[in-house]
């Protein structure tokens, strides 16, 4: 990892250490199911932002394996159905600006990827990574469910956040990342990409004097810079026609940097395998978490 990226992650951790997570849970009677309870979870992240997560807990005694589904680049991170919820704790954390975590700041889509990008201190995406780390910490800190081994999964930005959490939290047991967003890598800055990465080119086209700032202030977030620190097995999917999140060449470089990576390349556009890979991922996660 470069010195600058090292400094960024050290500062991020230092900010989080100073702030208690202050986790609060509230059972949601409306969305709870006969087989699992649903909780609304709130906790504190960097800058004092209160963040929201959906947490589902199977009925019965723990410890339960857990799956954290990191949020993609979108406004809503809803109560995602997964068959694992009958047997595993499932957490859907949000980052600042998403629905339910937008009291102080409401993110725009498109728009968030360049919000405050002219300065590292104001660039929101740098704090989004802090929010991801804090989500993992909050799951371990909550007292409602006894949690066993934890897998972190995500698609697009969620895939990148999942990899970042695994690089900085050794307790992560497994990672499943689909088409992780190349934010921070030079591959994200070329013209002609699709959204969401195209937001960066939009910004550089309109504010041509900010090109260097865009490169500099995103560079620390490049997943390639932390990939080597991941100790857990990673299931990584990419699509050969993807130009909006994880261009193929970037995905292949990323896979090569991760010590234990199972790379699956699909002929789909941006979804990294779609339905076929969803089945593979479910089976892979079940094996890693001992869910059979």
């Amino acid at each position, binding site marked *: 990892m470069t010195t600058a990226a090292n400094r960024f992650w050290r500062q991020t951790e230092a900010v989080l250490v100073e702030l208690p997570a202050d986790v609060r849970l509230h059972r949601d009677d409306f*969305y709870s199911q006969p087989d699992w309870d649903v909780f609304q979870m709130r906790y504190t992240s960097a800058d004092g932002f209160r963040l929201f997560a959906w947490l589902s807990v199977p009925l019965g005694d723990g410890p339960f394996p857990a799956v954290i589904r990191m949020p993609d680049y*979108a*406004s*809503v991170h809803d109560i995602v*159905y997964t068959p694992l919820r009958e047997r595993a704790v499932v957490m859907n954390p949000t980052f600042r600006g998403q629905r339910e975590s937008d009291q102080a700041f409401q993110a*725009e889509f498109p728009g968030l990827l360049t919000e405050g990008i002219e300065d590292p201190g104001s660039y929101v995406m740098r704090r989004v990574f802090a929010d991801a780390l804090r989500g993992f910490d909050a799951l371990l800190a909550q007292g409602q469910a006894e949690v066993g081994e934890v897998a972190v999964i995500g698609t697009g930005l969620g895939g990148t956040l999942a990899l970042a959490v695994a690089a900085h939290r050794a307790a992560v047991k497994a990672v499943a990342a689909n088409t992780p967003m190349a934010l921070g890598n030079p591959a994200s800055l070329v013209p002609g990409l699709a959204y969401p990465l195209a937001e960066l080119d939009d910004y550089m086209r309109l504010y041509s004097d900010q090109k260097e700032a865009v490169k500099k202030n995103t560079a620390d977030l490049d997943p390639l810079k932390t990939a080597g620190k991941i100790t857990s097995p990673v299931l990584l999917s990419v699509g050969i026609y993807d130009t909006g999140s994880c261009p193929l060449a970037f995905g292949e470089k990323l896979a090569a940097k991760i010590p234990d990576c199972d790379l699956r390349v699909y*002929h789909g556009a941006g*979804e990294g395998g*779609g339905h076929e890979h969803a089945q593979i991922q479910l089976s892979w996660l079940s094996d890693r978490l001992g869910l059979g």
Partner: protein
Amino acid sequence: MATEQDLQDFTTQVTCPDDFDEFWAGTLEMLSGISLNPVVAAEPLRSNDDVHVFNVTYLSLGGLEISAWYSLPAHGDGPFPAVINFPGYKSEPPVRRDWARRGVAVLSVAVRGKLKSSSEFNPGYPGLLTSGLESKETYGYRGVISDCVRGVDFLSSRQEIDPGRIYACGTSQGGGLTLITSALRPEIKAGVSGYPFLCCYPEAMAMFRSYPYDELACYARAYPDQEERMLDTLRYFDAVNFAPRIKCPMVVGIALDDEVCPPETSYAAYQALTSHRELWLFPNSGHGNAHEYPSQERAWLESQIERSAVAS
């Protein structure tokens, strides 16, 4: 995974209320009494050499201000053919520069509750599907559907748009809204409805435990004495009841392993169509992820657009 036989064997219990047409005629009449009041503002950040992007606002049911992304070809004089793109349940409407680059204007509607249209109505996700279910008059989707109808009105009002060449598309909720809006606005000349949501609510909420349909099951569990009234309200918003009222060619795309919108329910909407119809089945795909769907959608709509150009 559902089979084609499963689709053909499926029969919905949804019936059409006697006053269905009266209810929607009354809603459209209310809309006609509200000034569209369109405002079109340039979005230089999203525009480029090939596409001019605008943020549009217009007024809809209840006087709510609705936003939309409006992408126009930068080259050519027009009038342009136009596609109205309806959004999914929880996703924000995309900026569709891809179509505009190919000479087609696109209006991508942020129906009420979406970020750009949420200042006065914001039930959240989950939440929208059960918002105001107490009656057909208060149900949130009455407004959502009206916002789509007004999007068609906006396009029809524009000098740069050929009013005889307006098309519709969307997936999931956008697929359901494509069917419904096409029934309410004959200005739509053809549509592609992918993995349509908003079909056969009683069966859909019973077949799967995934959201958004599971919101209805949660509602029924929380308020068991209200379930009958809920299902009665939903009959006025079921795409199956709109389908026979569609006059234009329509494609319905269905993924046989769809885990969000049961394929049988989408097929029921297809079966209810009486206009020219096409069925695209994707055997090894789930909700919204058939690899070939986006290219098929584009090719089919382009063929419709070209055909209308030749005819005119």
